């Protein structure tokens, strides 16, 4: 098998030695087993160990290796190298402070996630066995609970770029609806109150970048729409 060579253009910044960020060009020879973008990055790191990025499961469930690839937020481990036009331009997720290279500071993203109280609230005495839930009611959680908190969605959202401290963002709102939709949760009023604000929920303008980029094919815009519906129906 002939060896494939690819061209990459990568955002580099190490605050320990660089005054400002720059783009670095790489030519990389791949092995036949290198199929995903993450394989290429691991290969590249074996040659330049200063290149920094997060990675763990390499199968799209841990959410570590989200980055901006040719202008679109994606998981490196689920992106086929051969599907990408070259040079492959890699940048950190937009809108969050860069710590180093492709590593961003996700504090604000998680702060918003935590702000929606991402846990089941049911203060009734717990039964001895499981709380019952019909398969149909459980079905309501599909498309919600699978979120891996990779931040592809929130960091592709212009409303989140503008107001990361005030707008919960698509990932946090998807999680908010995951609990609103759970028949076992008893905090509906409290959860809606928590989002009743010009920014927290209503800064979503249905731009739908979140839907476009979600590597798990989830639809935060739809979940946000359902929360808005709940707001309306309780107001009337």
């Amino acid at each position, binding site marked *: 098998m002939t060896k494939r060579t690819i061209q990459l253009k990568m955002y580099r910044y*190490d*605050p*320990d*030695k660089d005054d400002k960020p720059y783009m670095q060009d790489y030519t990389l020879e791949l092995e036949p*087993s290198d*199929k995903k973008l993450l394989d290429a990055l691991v290969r590249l*790191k*074996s040659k*330049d*160990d*200063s290149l*920094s*990025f*997060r*990675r*763990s*499961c*390499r*199968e*799209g*469930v*841990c*959410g*570590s290796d989200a980055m901006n690839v040719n202008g679109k937020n994606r998981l490196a481990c*689920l992106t086929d190298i051969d599907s990408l036009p070259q040079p492959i331009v890699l940048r950190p997720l937009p809108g969050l402070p860069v*710590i*180093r*290279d492709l*590593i961003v500071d*996700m504090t604000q993203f*998680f702060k918003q996630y*935590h702000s929606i*109280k*991402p*846990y*089941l609230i*049911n203060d009734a005495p*717990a039964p*001895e*066995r*499981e*709380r*019952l*839930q*019909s*398969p149909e*009611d*459980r079905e309501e*959680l599909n498309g919600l*609970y*699978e979120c*891996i*908190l990779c931040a592809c969605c929130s960091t592709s959202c212009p409303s989140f770029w503008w107001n990361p401290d005030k707008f919960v963002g698509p990932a946090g709102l998807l999680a908010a609806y995951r*609990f609103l939709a*759970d028949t*076992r*949760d008893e905090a509906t009023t409290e959860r809606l109150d928590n989002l009743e604000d010009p920014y927290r929920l209503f800064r979503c303008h249905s731009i739908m970048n979140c839907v476009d980029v979600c590597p798990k094919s989830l639809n935060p815009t739809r979940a946000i729409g359902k929360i808005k519906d709940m707001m309306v129906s309780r107001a009337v």
Partner: protein
Amino acid sequence: MTVAKRTFDAVIVGAGGAGLRAALQLSESGLKTAVLTKVFPTRSHTVAAQGGVAASLGNSTEDNWHWHMYDTVKGSDWLGDQDAIEFMCRKANEVVVELEHYGMPFDRTDNGKIYQRPFGGHSQNYGQSPVSRSCAAADRTGHAMLHALYQRNVRANTQFFVEWMALDLIRNADGDVLGVTALEMETGEVSIFHAKATIFATGGAGRIFHSSTNAFINTGDGLGMAARAGVPLEDMEFWQFHPTGVFGAGVLITEGVRGEGGILRNASGERFMERYAPNLKDLASRDVVSRSMVTEINEGRGCGPDKDHVLLDITHLSPETIMKRLPGIREISIQFAGVDPIKAPIPVVPTAHYQMGGIPTNYKGQVVAPKGGNVNAPVTGFYAAGECACASVHGANRLGTNSLLDLLVFGKSAGESVVEDLNSGNLSLKPLPADAADVSLARLARLEGQTNGESVFDVGLDMRRTMQKHAGVFRFDNLLKEGVSQILSVAERAKRTEIKDKSKVWNTARTEALELDNLIEVAKATMVSAEARKESRGAHVRDDAPDSPEFPNGRNDNEWLKHTLWFSEGNRLEYKPVTMRPLSQDVEPIALAKRTY
């Protein structure tokens, strides 16, 4: 260099299932607790578990914990400690129901209970027929569980130190554990976490192998730290090769696929497991299925141009079942095998998956080591749970779904033990030795100053290839002997790894070098323990210990019904007895027998 010091009642290292479950116990008890984790908690490898968690809820088929205990002891090839196994199986319903109360989105039966599916090695009535014991959230059970546990910890206000890598265990002259040193990845600063109790929940080290289902982070950090600090590692020769890793990529395909009716086929389309396990067939335990697959491949019945894999077939299942019960598997197959399993079978091959051995503990999660004639003397202040620990419930082979159960039961139990030991005054904040951080600082200084060394990547690659070749599914005396000398020479090279990146900030080259130190301890423990065990048992099967009338399946209970303890210092081995007596007086021990499925 001055080293900052932080003080806590308890420090937990690792925020996967076991660490988070333990943290909950401590946070809800109001103890000042720090959870150190080198990745954000929901990125821990528990997230990748797919098929389910075992509990004899009996929601679909009749079940009870006695049957589960029998299956687990038999699955362990009688190397599991029966007190710990009884404890785990009896606690299963409680911890799974708790998780449901925390909000875990289990699938449901028509009457609204937790959905359960069959899984390998789990049976009704002491081996008679398959049982639905695996509580599942589609094929994303680990993801659903890890997120539910993290969320509950958010509610409990647990204090996390995210992206902090623990470096070394701190012990005093008496051997008591006083905490750990840790590196903040964003700044490169080292701190001491001084605590009355230290819980390790650092997961496995599947990355010692070249072909592994494990995440990059599974580098056995807790095992390396324990071994360097003089704590032995137990039963490290026993590694589970999961039957169905995606051929080429190594990504896991859950046994739940076979639980839902999937069938393994060889090149002629034959359902070959009928020959090896006439009763449970494709749902025999994992060691048996993996060996059967490798035998098919070795005897020329493998699939593909190089006859080097077999096929996992679910094309006979309805697309609705696949979409509902196995949606994640379909994604993985399309992504990593280029195959839509609705239309075509998935190419699979046995792949390193789980470490049955680990840091020795008792059923309370206390770390134990030989001291003054007691082979199971608790190490004061030290606890461990989950894959890094060896309680030992999995013995020589773990049953599918017992790992998620293990981390819930023993995560909780380790947490409870810490609370109990603190309340009873058994634990106190002991003075730190003056040199508490010296080992860590020396390791970092060595890396900083190393010249003319080898790259971490090259040494790591040789370690992984050596383990893959010399300690695989089938083991050979000559390969093991060679493997020992080769891995010891790789270990020498690992002492001189060199990194080019000297930045303080988020230096992943440094992290990977430190991780390699941990992997090397695990690799040595594995190879040396495997070479020494001259019998076949569970996942450890040698060519020179074949099936015979005297030694059924090659197992030699007279000489080898015992746990291995490997000590890093001196690279030496000791052994200790298996606990054959269950925890409760009124529970009958599961008597030794030949293992068939």
